[in-house]
């Protein structure tokens, strides 16, 4: 169990930090507790990482929403993945987004999921995921231009 914890902690940390920001360690700890308390319910070991991702992202959004630190903004268009524009301080831009927008952006940019898969992780409809992503991209664009 200790080895599994060593294996999963960096992954969960990568998922939670862009969403929960300063509350990243709290979110990661809460997510890992949920993972370890429910391990018995995981029927297919090969699905471990997808299952952990779903728990971690939802937990990070929940923790971030609970925090009073969130400062959502409204913004225009995200650069294409891998573009040089993303070399700006990502954390600074993430600070201006809501947890839900950070989550969709992270799933797209860090995890490389398409909108349908990201919608599944977040338990929202594909339409909602698409609209959140679009607003997040807009937010990113506006942040650079401000």
């Amino acid at each position, binding site marked *: *169990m*200790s080895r599994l*914890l060593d294996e999963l*902690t*960096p992954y969960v*940390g*990568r998922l*939670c*930090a*862009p969403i*929960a*920001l300063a509350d*990243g*360690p709290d*979110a*990661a*700890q809460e997510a*890992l*507790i949920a993972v*370890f*308390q429910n*391990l018995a319910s995981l029927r297919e070991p090969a699905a471990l990482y997808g299952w952990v991702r779903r728990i971690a992202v939802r937990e990070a959004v929940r923790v971030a929403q609970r925090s009073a630190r969130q400062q959502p903004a409204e913004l225009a268009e995200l650069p294409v*993945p*891998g*573009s040089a524009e*993303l*070399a700006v*301080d*990502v*954390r600074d831009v*993430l600070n201006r987004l809501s947890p839900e927008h950070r989550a969709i952006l*992270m799933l797209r*940019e*860090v995890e490389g999921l398409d909108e349908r898969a990201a919608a599944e992780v977040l338990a929202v409809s594909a339409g909602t995921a698409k609209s959140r992503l679009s607003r997040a991209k807009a937010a990113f664009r506006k942040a650079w231009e401000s």
Partner: protein
Amino acid sequence: MTNQWPVTDLDAVQRMRVLASALPGGGFARLHIDAPVERVWAYIADLERSIPELIGFIRRFELLGDGTAVARGPVRNRGRFDVELRDGWCVMQDRFVVGGFAAAADGDGTLLAVCGAVRTPGLRRIVPLVLGRRTLVGVLERVRRATA
């Protein structure tokens, strides 16, 4: 590009909290100790000395050099433990119990955590006696006194 994104990690105490949550009937406690983490961990990591001083039902704890240890109790009972020991982290388990310590710097002092659980369902009724929260806090208080 992804290395521009923020990442986070858990310190050893936070990891121990996660591990404890996964142990059925397990207990967990933590305490701030006004001593540097190096001193606190040096004491804990000297397992042959610290474990008999800290754990009431263990009289001797002998490391065998192969990642295991033999613990001897007050009535000549013995158990063979797997021991995972690294900086700030120690987990020990035999057939019946699992327990561990974790330490992280906390300002100039140390945040020290301990957890313990009984692995055999039939023995879980004794958990409050040997591994309950009061017992675990008592263990941490003994570390505080030993490293003052």
